[in-house]
């Protein structure tokens, strides 16, 4: 198993390189002479242009520029934002933190609710509890995340129970660390709930079906024939097999942290990467776009890697390959 993991981690490196190349090419192979455009853009000061010319070899051929860029990435220099006139690394750091906080919150909430609900519904198969849960899940699956987000924003605006937009309240400066944390969490709740509600239905349905399938498996009959108590039959034998296929899904969710939350971020005005990337693309803030693509791609590969490693740890049949 260790060898498998090492191999997967080693594969990670060339993938990362491929991804930097892709992020770079997408921007640079776009039609138009992009360097001249930069110079003519009144938003960008001549000093910035000069500095970037030096750092990123903008007067050199595209391929050489790529290596300049990679060299800079390795030292965490992601260039300067044309629009905000600050280093992109600085911009991204804060926004990425918000997005990660939002995603971690919603993924945790989704899983912690969907798994027990799925198991409960599987055990109540055919009873009204299952019917109610499955109907609710059906509604949740049919509503797109942005719609749920808009609905929640509307409700929050009407009831004033939750703040809308931003990450902090005005009293931020005078507050203690704990108060700041709670305040942040309160702001997180609205987009977090939107994402959770949007994702919980399909995960619930998957868990219910997996659990039912596991319960119908012959090895469950063996477990019962051994005289094991229901706790072990359900939560050892059935659960472990029901959860295995979910692990891949978990990896995908990690992979999709940026793209998955973008719409909800924009609608609830949560200052995360989604908003940042959208603005960057609209204002042709090229190095910011490239850096964002890079981070998105990095998360994608990392998510897959984590999923694969988790799966190998959970399923002995894959372990031996």
């Amino acid at each position, binding site marked *: 198993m260790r060898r498998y993991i090492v191999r997967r981690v080693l594969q990670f490196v060339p993938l990362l390189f491929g991804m930097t190349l892709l992020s770079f090419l997408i921007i640079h192979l776009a039609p138009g002479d992009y360097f001249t455009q930069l110079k003519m853009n009144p938003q960008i000061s001549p000093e910035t242009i000069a500095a970037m010319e030096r750092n990123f070899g903008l007067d050199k051929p595209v391929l050489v520029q790529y290596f300049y860029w990679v060299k800079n990435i390795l030292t965490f220099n992601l260039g300067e934002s044309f629009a905000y006139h600050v280093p992109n690394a600085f911009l991204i750091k804060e926004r990425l933190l918000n997005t990660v906080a939002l995603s971690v919150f919603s993924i945790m909430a989704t899983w912690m609710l969907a798994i027990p609900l799925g198991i409960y519904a599987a055990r109540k198969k055919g009873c009204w509890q299952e019917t109610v849960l499955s109907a609710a899940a059906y509604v949740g699956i049919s509503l797109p995340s942005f719609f749920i987000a808009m609905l929640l924003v509307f409700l929050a605006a009407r009831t004033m129970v939750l703040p809308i937009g931003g990450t902090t309240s005005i009293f931020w400066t005078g507050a203690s660390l704990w108060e700041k944390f709670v305040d942040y969490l309160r702001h997180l709740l609205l987009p977090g709930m939107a994402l959770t509600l949007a994702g919980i239905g399909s995960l619930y349905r998957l868990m219910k079906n997996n659990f039912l399938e596991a319960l119908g498996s012959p090895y469950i009959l063996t477990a019962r*024939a051994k005289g*094991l108590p229901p706790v072990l039959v359900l939560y050892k034998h059935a659960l472990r097999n029901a959860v295995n296929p979910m692990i891949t899904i978990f990896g995908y969710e990690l992979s999709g942290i940026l793209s998955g939350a973008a719409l909800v971020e924009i609608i609830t005005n949560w200052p995360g990467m989604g908003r940042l990337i959208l603005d960057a693309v609209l204002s042709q803030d090229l190095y910011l776009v490239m850096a964002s693509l890079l981070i998105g791609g990095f998360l994608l590969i990392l998510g897959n890697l984590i999923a694969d490693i988790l799966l190998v740890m959970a399923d002995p*049949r894959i372990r031996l390959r």
Partner: protein
Amino acid sequence: MEKTLVVKNLALAFHQERRPVTILAGVEFEISSGETLALVGESGSGKTLTALSIVKLLPPQARLETGEVRLNGQSLTSLSEREMENIRGRQVGLVFQEPSAYLNPVFTIGNQIEEAIKSSLSRKEKKERVAQMLAEVGLDEKHYWHYPHQLSGGMQQRALIAMALINHPSLLIADEPTTSLDVTTAVQIISLIKTLIKKHHLALLFISHDIALAHYFADRMAVMYAGRLVEIGPTRTVFNSPRHPYTESLIACLPEKYKPGEKIRAIPGTVPDFANLPSGCPFHPRCHRRMERCFREEPEMFPVASALVRCFLYGNSVATEPGN
């Protein structure tokens, strides 16, 4: 001799959408300690459901309508699910047909055997007990740490046998334990089972669709057709002089009864659909010795020599329980 298992007048029906469908009717047999009873019949005749009825591990739609099961003198019929958990594994072990499917793929062999231990032992004692059991079924100690997919079908079946016998039950139910194995492996598993039942003086209910295999190692034999026992008696009697036309046909169709060049025989007709059982004796449409009353009435079990046979060739009374 003391009876380990007594099954009396078992009737089982599936309760699905419309009317209930009766599967088992009037199933009765006994197994003494140390004795092997083979339950044979075509697939779909209700053998597995008979086995599952004994330990009350039936699918949710199946219901026992009548009957009593006594294990070591104790009636299981009125026991709660909780009480049955105590019986399963401890007093009766089960082994099934498809070993790869009946082992949980994500736990080690050792783990799955060890969790079956019912007596409160220390971790170390449990490990020793498992190691001893592994040796007994012919597995290596290293298989403790192996996952099911790392074992061959035969070794998987050995692991399942170890699981079933770890608490020294008095009854083993083996439901077609060799059907999914190749011939060589099947022979090994059969001789392992034979060794184990002798050593532990186990009562064995051996289920098989193969009457020749059953004949090879059962003390007594019960033949099932459409959820009814049609013949039961000492293996020699049943096999060498079958009385029921169905048993007769089963034996006549065995490959070893053929002369070179002869065409393969099969019992004409098909296994009946339980939802539309033929009237009278369910076997009459395929029977070469049917009489007029077979269309209307279902016979009782009649004693013939040392066997019991459900056929009007041997008596006159009509069954009270089986049928509808």
